[in-house]
């Protein structure tokens, strides 16, 4: 039996808008899903008859599949619409696309989009829940949920006294931004580390410490989140080369030896083996990378369930 407590959000756009109590509601629901489902493929009837649309304006296999599995475990149907298949490529606006989706009797909309703020924009246009599956560099709130859920399983619900270091391309990372909000709301101290061009000082206004000294950042950290480094168009002027990045900031065995025993190593995937992390380390006991994937499904189930019930209250008996 699970209570939805005081969850009132129709949409799930950004961790910044979520209180610590609301995070607790999410985590408790995710825990109960995890206990009930275990590793089985059992389904819950909670969202039976509901249709979830995955609108992916930017490609992402893992987040999409995770939402599809989450929907299926709650007995919802899901439909996938990609940018190339949608009318948007024919010049239809996002507003019109979204209204058409609503007219098809969709009950929930999950969107991935390259433009920051686009999920918020959509949530103001349509009445059904909008769940942000990543909007540009702004937010990826369900990723932060699953990261924090994974840490919470080890640390308990209070992260006070814990230090989490996020390493890599913070500037273009929605995962980093969502984790900065979530980790701090849960009580952790957050340090960002990486090249000065990818970790600008402006981040300190979000309450975090900004560092370019990898050793100092690693020695006392309790968890280390690695971010994928890309050397593509948007970052091409920000650092010289992947090789230079790896030599200055890549996590190798020597640098991993600076970590305290038991430090948790996380990565939102997909991993660039040999760039941000040595291949062996990615597979080591420190690493919880695969567990993150599993927890992603139950955290997304919790979000879908709560947002759907904020619009159409579901009786408690239907849950679990």
């Amino acid at each position, binding site marked *: 039996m699970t209570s939805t407590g005081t969850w009132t959000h129709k949409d799930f756009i950004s961790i910044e808008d979520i209180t610590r109590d609301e995070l607790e509601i999410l985590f408790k629901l995710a825990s109960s899903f995890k206990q009930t489902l275990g590793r089985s493929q059992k389904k819950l009837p909670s969202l039976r008859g509901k249709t979830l649309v995955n609108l992916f304006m930017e490609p992402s296999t893992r987040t999409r599949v995770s939402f599809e599995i989450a929907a299926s475990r709650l007995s919802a149907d899901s439909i996938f619409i990609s940018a190339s298949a949608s009318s948007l490529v024919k010049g239809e*606006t*996002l507003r019109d696309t979204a209204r058409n989706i609503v007219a098809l009797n969709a009950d929930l909309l999950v969107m991935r*989009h390259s*433009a920051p703020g686009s999920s918020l924009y959509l949530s103001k246009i349509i009445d059904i829940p909008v769940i942000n599956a990543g*909007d540009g560099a702004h937010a990826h709130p369900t990723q932060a949920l699953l990261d924090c859920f994974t840490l919470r399983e080890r640390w308990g619900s209070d992260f006070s006294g814990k230090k989490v270091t996020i390493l890599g391309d913070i500037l273009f990372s*929605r995962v980093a931004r969502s984790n900065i909000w979530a980790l701090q709301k849960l009580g952790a101290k957050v340090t960002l580390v990486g090249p000065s061009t990818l970790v600008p000082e*402006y*981040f300190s206004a979000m309450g975090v410490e900004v560092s370019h000294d990898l050793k100092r950042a690693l020695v006392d950290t309790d968890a280390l989140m690695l971010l994928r480094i890309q050397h593509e168009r948007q970052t091409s002027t920000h650092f010289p080369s992947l090789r230079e990045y790896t030599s200055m900031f890549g996590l190798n065995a020597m640098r991993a030896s600076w970590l305290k025993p038991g430090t948790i190593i996380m990565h939102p995937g997909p991993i660039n083996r040999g760039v941000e992390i040595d291949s062996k380390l990615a597979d080591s006991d420190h690493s919880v990378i695969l567990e993150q994937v599993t927890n992603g499904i139950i955290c997304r189930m919790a979000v879908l369930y709560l947002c759907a019930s904020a619009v159409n209250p579901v009786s408690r008996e239907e849950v679990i």
Partner: protein
Amino acid sequence: MRERRESRFQGGGNLVAMSKVLWISGGRVIDPANNRDESGDVFAVDGRVVSSLSEEQKSAARRIDAGGLVVCPGFVDIHVHLREPGQTHKENIASGTRAAAAGGFTTVVCMPNTEPPADNAGTIQFIKDAIARDAVVNVYPTGCITVGRQGERLAPTGSLKRAGVVAITDDGDCVQNNEIMRRAVEYAKMFDICVMDHCQDAALTEGSVMNEGANSIRFGLGGWPNSAEDIIVSRNVILSSYSGAHIHLQHITSAYAVDIIRRAKQRGIRITAEASPHHISLTDDLLKTYDVNYKMNPPLRTEEDRQALISGLLDGTLDCIATDHAPHTDYEKDREFDYAPFGIIGLETALAVCLQTLVVAGKCDLPFLVSLLTNKPAKVLKLDAGTLSPGAMADITIFDPEREWTANPDDYQSRSVNSPWNGQQLRGKVAQTIVAGEIVWSGESASKMA
């Protein structure tokens, strides 16, 4: 000026019914060009200001009671986009000049980033024909600095001047190549024509949609550094210093740029500059909602920058206020923030916004604000406007600085409604706008063209 009379009298069809004698009585007359601030009367005969009326003229005069109102020269805006030719779904000369009239502006200078760009005498003539036919206020065109606004080859500045432009600018874009800009200002100097520059280093602003800083980091939006403006402002100061050419810096937003301009002026360099009502009143904190009506080029900056702009206006570093009225339709603007076009309309809200930001906030008195909207912008481009001196054209604005009103998009005269003040309660409203002695706006309804 020749073009001005042409535009007024060629379009004289709407002026036939005007009273020949106008008597505006009992207002607070503010005429900064003449250091005048007193309660009194303003008179006009046959479209020109006169110092007094004969008894006979008084009995024949059309009389306007301006009791409790401010009577001042019509406002002058040296930076508006009227979108004609080529983008008349956003605005045209008829609608844009009605918006100007509603905002108390009797003279506007329109930018050449039309379609096609106004980079040749033929397009300028097309614009002048439209002005003569449709404009309800004075409109002066500008021409491009470079062909097609591409920044590569000089447009024919001499022919453009002969065709009637009052300045050249590639506004919307900035000439990136320093050699081209150097030659442009040297060449323009020969014709004594001002080069207006939109100061933006393009390489520093690729993918930029808002001010770079703590807020762009938090919102995940592409940051637009102040340095993109500061570097081009410095470049222009240097080019003006070497050439002696007059360069006008459009819509300044950065505190550092204000400082560069201040020091250039102390050294006697021929630089002028403007600030917009939105940059002196709003900051980038507002982008938290991703409201596209806060997306403009250059972007809203920080409180520190905003205060520096106000200080710059107060000490004369920045010469005037200009709206950068930039209409876009709702369907163009209503997009994901990254994809929405830059720009907001500003003519109809400028007075109220500036009153609040400068006068109500205690930064300056009313005559000083009026000067920023009248004789000072006119002086930048040596326009025959912005004063109530006897013999001047009777372009007069009458406004109520206390009148509260709601900025309702349904009431805008502009064809577009892309304003951050939509729905907001504002204070200070134009009661009547008079062009060459003819009332073109009287409170609620614009004078409609035939």
